[in-house]
C-alpha cells in the first residue's frame, strides 16, 4: 500500500496500490476475508478500495425460519446458515456458530449479501441458484437492495426453484446479454401466464430446463432455445410444423426434449412412420433433424448428416 513507487517492498503491504489491487483481485472472496483479519491497514485497504472479486456461484436457499448462503470463489466455498432462534438469529459458518439476540434472520442474511455487493466489484458469476418457498420476503428484500444500488447480476446460469411470479420479478435483475441458461424447478403450476416469455432474459437465453410446470402457452415461445427441456399441456399440428421449421432452419439448435399431456398424432404432420422416427434435411446441407416420438415425449435432435440414414443415399 505504498503511496509512491520509490522503494522496493519487503512485504505485501509495502506494495504500490496497483499491484496490490491486482493481487487481491486474484485471491478470491474467502481469502480476502482471511486477509482482512491479518492486518489493520490491509483490512482498511480491502474494505475501502472496492476491489474486484470473481464469484463462481452464489446459492441462496430460503426455508421456514432459515436462510442458507453459499458462495464459491477461486475454488473455495463459504457457507453460512442463518436460523431464527427465539428472538434472535443463530449463525453457523464453517464449524462455528454464534447467536445474535434481537436480530432478524432475514435482515441478517440480506445484510451479508449487501456486504458482498457493496464492498466489492463482483464479477461474472457462472451460476446463481435460488431456492425458495411461498414466502417471498427474502427475495423481495434482496431485490429492493439490487434496485436501490442499481446492481445488475451478470450470471451465466440461473437455477431457480420457486413460483413463476417470483421468477418474473427476479429475472429483470439479470443482464440479458450474460444470462444464457435457465433452469426452473417450479413448485406450483400457475395459471396461463405469458409474463415470463415477454422478458428479454427469456428471449435471449439459449438453454432451458424446466421441470414440473406444464406450460399452456404457444410453443413459439420456446423455439429460440438451442437446448430445451420442457412440458406442454397440448401440442397441435401447427406446433409440430413450427418446431420442424424452426429447428431445421436454425444453425445453432442442438436438442429439445418436449413432454406433453396431449398431442396430435405426429403421423398426420410428419408422415407415417412405423418406428415413430422422422428425418428431415436442415437448411445447412451437412445436418439433418431427427424427430422421435414416444407416448407424449418428443425428441428433436440436430445431427450431422453422416450420422443419419440420409448419408446412405448420397
Amino acid at each position, binding site marked *: 500500500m505504498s503511496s509512491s*513507487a520509490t522503494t*522496493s517492498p519487503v512485504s505485501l503491504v509495502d506494495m504500490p496500490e496497483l499491484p496490490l489491487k491486482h493481487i487481491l*483481485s486474484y485471491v478470491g472472496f474467502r*481469502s480476502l476475508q482471511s486477509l*482482512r483479519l491479518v492486518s489493520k491497514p490491509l483490512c482498511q485497504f480491502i*474494505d475501502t478500495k472496492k476491489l474486484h472479486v470473481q464469484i463462481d456461484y452464489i446459492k441462496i436457499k430460503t426455508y421456514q425460519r432459515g436462510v442458507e448462503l453459499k458462495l464459491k470463489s477461486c*475454488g473455495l466455498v463459504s457457507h453460512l446458515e442463518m436460523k431464527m432462534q427465539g428472538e434472535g438469529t443463530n449463525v453457523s459458518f464453517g464449524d462455528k456458530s*454464534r447467536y445474535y439476540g434481537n436480530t432478524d434472520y432475514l435482515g441478517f442474511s440480506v445484510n451479508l449479501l449487501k456486504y458482498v455487493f457493496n464492498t466489492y466489484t463482483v464479477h461474472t458469476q457462472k451460476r446463481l441458484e435460488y431456492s425458495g418457498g411461498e414466502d417471498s420476503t427474502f427475495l423481495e428484500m434482496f431485490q429492493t437492495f439490487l434496485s436501490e444500488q442499481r446492481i445488475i447480476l451478470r450470471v451465466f446460469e440461473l437455477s431457480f426453484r420457486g413460483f413463476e411470479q417470483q421468477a418474473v420479478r427476479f429475472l429483470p435483475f439479470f443482464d440479458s446479454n450474460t444470462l444464457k441458461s435457465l433452469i426452473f424447478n417450479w413448485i406450483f403450476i400457475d395459471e396461463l401466464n405469458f409474463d415470463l416469455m415477454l422478458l428479454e432474459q427469456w428471449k435471449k437465453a439459449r438453454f432451458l430446463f424446466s421441470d414440473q410446470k406444464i406450460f399452456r402457452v404457444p410453443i413459439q415461445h420456446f423455439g429460440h432455445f438451442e437446448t430445451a427441456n420442457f412440458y406442454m399441456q397440448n401440442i397441435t399440428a401447427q406446433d409440430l410444423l413450427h418446431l420442424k421449421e424452426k429447428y431445421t432452419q436454425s444453425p445453432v439448435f442442438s436438442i429439445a426434449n418436449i413432454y406433453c399431456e396431449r398431442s396430435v398424432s405426429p403421423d398426420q404432420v410428419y408422415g407415417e412412420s412405423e418406428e415413430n422416427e422422422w428425418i428431415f434435411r436442415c437448411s445447412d446441407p451437412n445436418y439433418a433433424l431427427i424427430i422421435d416420438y414416444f407416448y407424449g415425449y418428443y425428441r428433436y435432435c440436430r445431427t450431422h448428416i453422416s450420422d443419419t440414414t440420409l448419408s446412405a443415399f448420397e
Partner: protein
Amino acid sequence: MSVENAPVVDVDEAAIPVEKKMYYRFESNDKKEFRVSELAIQQSETLNRLVEAMGYTSEDVENKPAIAIENIDGKTLKLVFQWCEHHKGEAIPVDDGSVPKIVEIPEFDAKLMDIDNGLLFKLIWAADYLNIVQLLNVSCKKVANMAQGKTPAQLRRVYLLPSDEEDEAAKRAAQEAQDPRAREVEEEFEERKRQGGNSFF
C-alpha cells in the same frame, strides 16, 4: 527455453557473444550491468519510451554510460530482463479494465518466479515500475495463489506482513492521517478478533 538459458547478458559474467542486433546497456542500483535486446525492451513501456527518447545508435550504446535504473537491484533486474527476453515479440495485453483477468502462468514464468517471497515482491514492484503488463499479471497471480486455503496466521507469514506491534504503529499512522473510515475499520477488526478470529465467510 529454460530460465537459465534466457539470453540476458550480465556484462560481468558475459561469456557468450551477444547476437548482432540493436541492444541497450542498463545498470542496476548496485552497479550490475545488463545488455538487453531492443525487442525485449518493448515489453516495458517505461524503458521503451526511455530508449526512444534517447535515440541511441549502436555506437552510443557502447560509448555512453549504461542507462541507470536507480530503484532496482541487480538480482531483480536480471529476472526482469530474462522475462523480457523470453517473451520478446509477444503481444502486450491491453488493459480493458476487466479485473480480475484470466491469467495462466507459463512454465518458463513459473520457474523464473520460483524464488523467495521477498524477491518475488521486488519483481512485482519492478514490473509495476517499468510497466511490464504481462509480467505484472503473472507475478501478481503467483502471489495470489499463495493465499489459497491459508489461515490468517499463515497468510501473515507467507506475505511477510507486519507483527501486531507494527500493526499498532500502522494504526497510529492511520489515525494521524485522519481517515474517517480508519477508526470504524479498526473497531470492526477488533470485534471480529474478539469473536473468534474468523470472518463469517
